[in-house]
């Protein structure tokens, strides 16, 4: 009885408040000669985005721009995930080493970068890269690769050249033995490397004010890659270290008695058992990383958040719609990945835990 009346009271109050808020909101939107709706997403955006993997020009739609932003976010996320995992595993293994100094180094790294805000790190790397790298007129040059404070310019092969790399997962799935897999992998890499000589490479050439042709990675992209990877790697190192510590000491001792060395024990005995323990936490870190990419707005890299809640919002004045799009898409990403994190199974190792 009490519960029902609370429910009733709550729904009346909540609905009236919501109604008042929405009416006010609608009035305010109409005041700006706008009408609530997502139709504007399909009108011409009117701005170009410079730093993208797929080009966006001003005569394409807002929706296209948002997709481009998502694409930017995901590519950056994948790059950061790879790099930060590598660094994280390195420091996690370092912290299990017997040497006191290596342990100290690892814990210093983890504690230093974990306790400084990500935004401070991003701005720090951005400022210092801009400050230390030479201007475009006097690039650091190595063969045809140029490095300047406008970014990295490098020769580019047509994208068809990279198709053979898609065979790599196939090798890992199909090949039966370790030796077999290694040989196939090396063979593929060598054949692919030789084949690269037969393509037409676009080489960056100097024009009057800049470099043109070839591939380009912007300074913003690099900054985010470095800052996010370092920041996330400190978290990843910590959670992998926790997983390794959870494995029983007897495992190490028995492996040692079989005559394996430190690295072998780590790779063959400890890590396979630790993976199911730290995997959920690790995946959550990847999710956090993806959310943290939204800080790119501070240095003007056009990621999904920057394009939607920055450029489009300012250009079209549709603040409510833009924020809603952002919330929905982040919610979607979060829901899907949480579903995977919670339902993923580790058939190979699960029994050992």
């Amino acid at each position, binding site marked *: 009885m009490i519960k029902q009346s609370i*429910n009733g009271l709550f729904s009346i109050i909540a609905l009236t408040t919501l109604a008042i808020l929405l009416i006010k909101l609608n009035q305010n939107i109409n005041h700006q000669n706008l009408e609530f709706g997502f139709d504007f997403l399909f009108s011409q955006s009117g701005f170009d985005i410079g730093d993208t993997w797929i080009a966006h020009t001003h005569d394409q739609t807002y929706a296209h721009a948002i997709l481009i932003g998502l694409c930017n976010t995901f590519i950056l996320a994948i790059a950061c995930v790879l790099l930060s995992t590598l660094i994280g595993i390195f420091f996690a293994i370092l912290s299990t080493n017997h040497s006191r100094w290596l342990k100290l180094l690892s814990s210093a790294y983890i504690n230093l970068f974990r306790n400084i*805000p990500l935004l401070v790190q991003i701005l720090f790397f951005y400022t210092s890269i801009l400050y230390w790298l030479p201007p475009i007129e006097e690039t650091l040059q190595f063969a045809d690769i140029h490095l300047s404070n406008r970014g990295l310019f490098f020769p580019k092969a047509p994208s068809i050249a990279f198709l053979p790399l898609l065979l790599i997962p196939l090798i890992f799935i199909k090949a039966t033995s370790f030796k077999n897999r290694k040989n196939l992998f090396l063979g593929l890499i060598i054949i692919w490397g030789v084949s690269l000589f037969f393509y037409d490479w676009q080489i960056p050439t100097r024009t009057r004010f800049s470099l043109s042709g070839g591939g380009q990675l912007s300074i913003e992209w690099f900054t985010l890659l470095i800052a996010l990877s370092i920041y996330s790697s400190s978290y990843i190192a910590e959670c992998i270290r926790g997983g390794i510590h959870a494995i029983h000491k007897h495992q190490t001792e028995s492996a040692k008695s079989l005559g394996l060395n430190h690295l072998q024990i780590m790779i063959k005995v400890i890590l396979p058992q630790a993976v199911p323990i730290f995997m959920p936490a690790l995946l959550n870190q990847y999710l956090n990383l993806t959310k943290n990419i939204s*800080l790119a707005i501070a240095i003007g890299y056009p990621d999904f958040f920057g394009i939607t809640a920055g450029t489009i919002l300012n250009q079209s004045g549709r603040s409510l719609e833009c924020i809603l799009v952002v*919330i929905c898409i982040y919610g979607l990403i979060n829901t899907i990945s949480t579903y995977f994190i919670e339902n993923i199974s580790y058939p190979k190792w699960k029994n050992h835990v």
Partner: protein
Amino acid sequence: MSNIHFLIDFLLFGFFPEQQRWRLMIILLICLSHTWLTLKFARHSIPLKTFILCSFCLLTSSWYLAFGDGWLLNIIPTNQLSGFILNICLAYWSIPIATVMSVGFCYLMIYQPELWPTHCFVILAKIIRSIPLITLLFFITLILPMMTNIEITRFQAALTGLIIFLIAYIVEVFKGAHQAIDTHQHESAAALQITGIRKFIHIDLPQIIKNSIPSLINTYIGLIKDTALVTIIGLSDSLGNLQLLIAKYEFKHDFLLLFAIIAALFWMLCFICSLFGKKLEKAIVYE
């Protein structure tokens, strides 16, 4: 090198009027004494009622000292509270408020899961946990004024945003800690006929708090770092002031020093917080 003094001063206190700096010193003292008080309380040196009363007094007096009333103390506009002290104040004001509020929401989630307010809260918390903090800050600065026709200063927006964000995460921490409580506890409480809110206050809450301290402290540290994000909505916290300085030609070459100062300040604050967590964990050992 003579302007290093000026740089540190500007990063720490920003635009706060020079003659009123003593007020900020007292706020810092209040923060420290509040942590000390919490430890005392955890060690059972002071009773609960005194602790709640003292906490309330400390929080309100720090607020009063920061903004004044125009009668005893000069009124300070919210945009003049800047620099690293703004980061500290945001963290200090949001952490106790959010923790207390999440205790209430935690009660709702555990004991009244059928109520509609609880359902609403759970869904909202899930949404807030899935978006980055700046999205929430943007929402509060851009949409909320349109909805309510109330002018919201950036400072108020930042504080509300941080509190809401923190609640969404703390409730999750509390929920996990509640699941870690031994089932026998619930049985013996039922056998002694302790039920409902009495059970929550006397049996569950003390154990929830004890179980959740490590992750709670991690959440707090996360929040302290997140206070740096208020620069993006245009508040001049320490990072905002740093960007102002770098934009000037004369300090352009000092950026390494400036970043080092900011990093050191944040690092120290987080370090103090984790130290506090360790002390707290040691203090709440029931033996």
